């Protein structure tokens, strides 16, 4: 009896596992869970979140998980935009790190004017946010026009701002490195008295707005249609160039918000080192989410999970005291493995292996 039950259980387990492993969200989520597990193994109190006090005595949430959620903000917001750009234009925007620098430069100039240590803000923060977003949108529109109107490959088109962006950011600040008054820091840290880091709230807001937009407009349908077959789309009344342009503008808006959060974290911007190589992390997040970098269909939830996965990986390597210079190597190795197991060839092999090993395990038990 027990034997039979055992066999049934293993069979059921194998079939459930097979179905699960075929789901497109399986690998992103499984890998995120796997990383978190390793972290818990290394540090049993990894998942603990506690209420502490900061230097001014306000209550703040403390914990590794909070740090990951907090630090992932820019990555997640940029990934949302990149997912849409990838789907519609079948390519990636590599200028986002540089354009974040431009946004940061604009915001600092607006808040500090020509002073390096102003005691108070030169303009309301809302104005800085709006102008920052406007700068991001302008950069996105520039890239979008090159891609949609002039049919330049996205990676080549965005190479222009990738190259020039950080210098433009520096110029926007008039060559100075100003530090804004402390009240600008609420948006990248804590609002006094409220224990949840503000960036986490901003991320939640961004995700909610995105999911709402995908549900309540035709953004998803149009983007996918254009990415899959732009000839057929245009015969069905769509304007493929306009839709590609629109996705770049949306990514520009994401850059504006990410730049705002990033410059608020330390209230200063070093245009040459702000968000280093973030474009690569963002593109990887899109790929990790199970999206084809060749465009077409996309999976927004997958991308967002992918972004958190990358942030978890980065944090893990830091807490493991991996030499800062060696972090990219570790990251690269893990990412190669991850991307490789998602290729259709290895994926089918993997699925077969899993089911096979389960079956043989079951058979072994039988004999025993």
């Amino acid at each position, binding site marked *: 009896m027990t034997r039979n039950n055992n066999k049934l259980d293993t069979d059921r387990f194998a079939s459930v596992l097979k179905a699960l492993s075929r789901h497109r969200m399986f690998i992103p989520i499984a890998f995120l869970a796997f990383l978190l597990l390793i972290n818990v193994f290394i540090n049993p109190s990894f998942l603990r979140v506690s209420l502490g006090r900061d230097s001014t005595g306000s209550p703040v949430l403390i914990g590794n998980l909070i740090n990951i959620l907090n630090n992932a903000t820019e990555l997640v917001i940029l990934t949302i935009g990149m997912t849409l750009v990838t789907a519609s234009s079948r390519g990636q925007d590599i200028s986002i790190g540089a354009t974040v620098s431009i946004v940061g430069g604009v915001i600092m100039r607006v808040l500090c004017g020509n002073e390096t240590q102003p005691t108070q803000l030169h303009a309301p923060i809302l104005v800085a946010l709006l102008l920052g977003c406007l700068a991001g949108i302008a950069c996105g529109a520039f890239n979008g026009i090159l891609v949609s109107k002039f049919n330049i490959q996205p990676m080549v088109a965005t190479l222009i701002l990738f190259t020039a962006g950080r210098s433009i950011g520096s110029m926007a600040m008039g060559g100075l490195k100003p530090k804004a008054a402390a009240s600008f820091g609420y948006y990248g840290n804590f609002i006094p008295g409220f224990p949840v880091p503000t960036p986490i709230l901003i991320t939640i807001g961004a995700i909610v707005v995105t999911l709402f937009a995908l*549900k*309540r*407009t*035709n*953004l998803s*349908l*149009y983007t*996918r*249609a254009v990415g*899959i*077959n732009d*000839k*057929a*789309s*245009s*015969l*069905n*009344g*769509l*304007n493929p160039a306009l839709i590609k342009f629109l996705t770049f503008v949306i990514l520009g808006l994401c850059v504006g918000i990410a730049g705002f959060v990033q410059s608020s974290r330390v209230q200063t911007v070093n245009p040459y080192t702000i968000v280093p190589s973030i474009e690569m992390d963002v593109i990887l997040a899109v790929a990790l989410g199970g999206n084809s970098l060749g465009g*077409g*269909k996309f999976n927004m939830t997958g991308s967002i999970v992918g972004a958190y996965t990358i942030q978890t990986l980065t944090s893990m390597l830091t807490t493991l005291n991996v030499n800062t210079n060696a972090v990219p190597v570790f990251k690269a190795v893990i990412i190669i493995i991850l991307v490789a197991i998602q290729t259709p060839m290895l994926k089918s092999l993997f699925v077969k292996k899993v089911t096979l090993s389960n079956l043989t395990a079951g058979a072994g038990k039988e004999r025993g």
Partner: protein
Amino acid sequence: MQNTVLTMQNIYKSFPGVRALHNVDFTLREGEIHALMGENGAGKSTLIKVLTGVYAKDAGEIYMKGTGKPVHIKSPQEAQRLGISTVYQEITLCPNLTVAENLFIGRTDDLFVDWKKYNSRAERILGGLKIPTKPTKQLSNCSIAVQQMVAIARAVDMDCKVLILDEPTSSLDEQEVAKLFTLMRELKGRGVGIIFVTHFLDQVYEVCDKITVLRNGELVGEYQIKDLPRVELVAKMMGKELGDLAEIHNEAQPSIMNSKEAIIEAEELTSTSGIKPFNFASHKGEVTGFAGLLGSGRSECVRAIYGADKVLKGKLRIKGENVNITTPIKAMKKGIGYLSEDRKRDGIIGDLSVRENIILALQVMRGFFRPFTKTQAQAFADEYISLLGIKTASADTPISSLSGGNQQKVILARWLLTHPDYLILDEPTRGIDIGTKVEIQKLVLKLASEGMSITFISSEIEEMLRTCSRLIVMRDLHVVGELKGDDMTQDKIMYTIAGGSNSK
């Protein structure tokens, strides 16, 4: 008797589910320009690809001059070594290199290249063939015709005995075509055997010596050009006997054919596709058709009406109102639907589900900020899946995994859902099974009887005769005639296409 340079005997080639070539013979002699003719799917390109080693033949023999035994051509490189060269419609040279570089690239054995030597050699070749260009000119700065000629010169210089010209004239204007013909005659004088694939009848009669006609993968026959009047060529390509009065009875003569309410009126319309200005009208409840051979401009006419190609000149009236349609969305909003000719390229959105493919056009008309709810979309999909009998696992299935006929029904559903006043169906029955074809024809007649104005284009003449009440006949991008009522017979159509008189 001239020397035979190439003989293909009993060639067979099948693809899964398709018999592409069935017992085809082809013979080419030295100094002969030989037209290879046939409609879509006749097997022309398969035959060329077998000859150039792109496809392996299933059975049959190929003999070349000088080789006693059959040759086995396994790759395009091998074909080239045997002296078989092909020049395609699209230029396959490097536009960023000079003419001389293009002539010799990949053919020089020396480690260091003496371009002076090659430039002067190129000069000689160009001069010998009277090609009006310089060796040092960058290829992309030459006209398309000259680029084509350079491709031919390269082939000829590689000691080719058989030159295949696959639709070389499609993108050339009349003067350029004339230059190309001069070059072809020059080569003919040198003893090169030329296989000329084209769909322009006039050009065949201007330059060719012989014609081989294929149809449905089978050899119809080989003819001397002087023995085969145009109208017979058209008949052979279409697979009809002249004077074959086994008329297909037009069960379709709709009762409301005398409706005078014009839905669409086009006046001297012309577009960037190269179509010559044409007049056209379609009335309420009428099924009109565009007849003509492949490439005669049937699709180009309807694409101009729909705004799919940029309209250059002309007027368009919809229900008597002057309209200016510059994009498909404007046409859609005026009540026009267009099922496009190339289903794979212009119709389906492969990775999207059947449901999304069905609602797409209506959704786009409704607007970006007003998406259908999933329930609404599902209701539309269910309605049309059952109405048209679309065979699909579910509405969530990606359209690309459906059979051709079912994909076409999904696209048809997409346009029916927009409830157009005027529906254009461009080759709706191509590549789909006979059962679905009949269903679509019946549906067209039913829709017309309900008052829709429809244009139905098909390469199968019987289908057009069965469904259309009026036919516009086209040749070489011109409208050359209009047939209706008792004039709608196969013979009349073929005479009109061939350019004979309308009255037999």
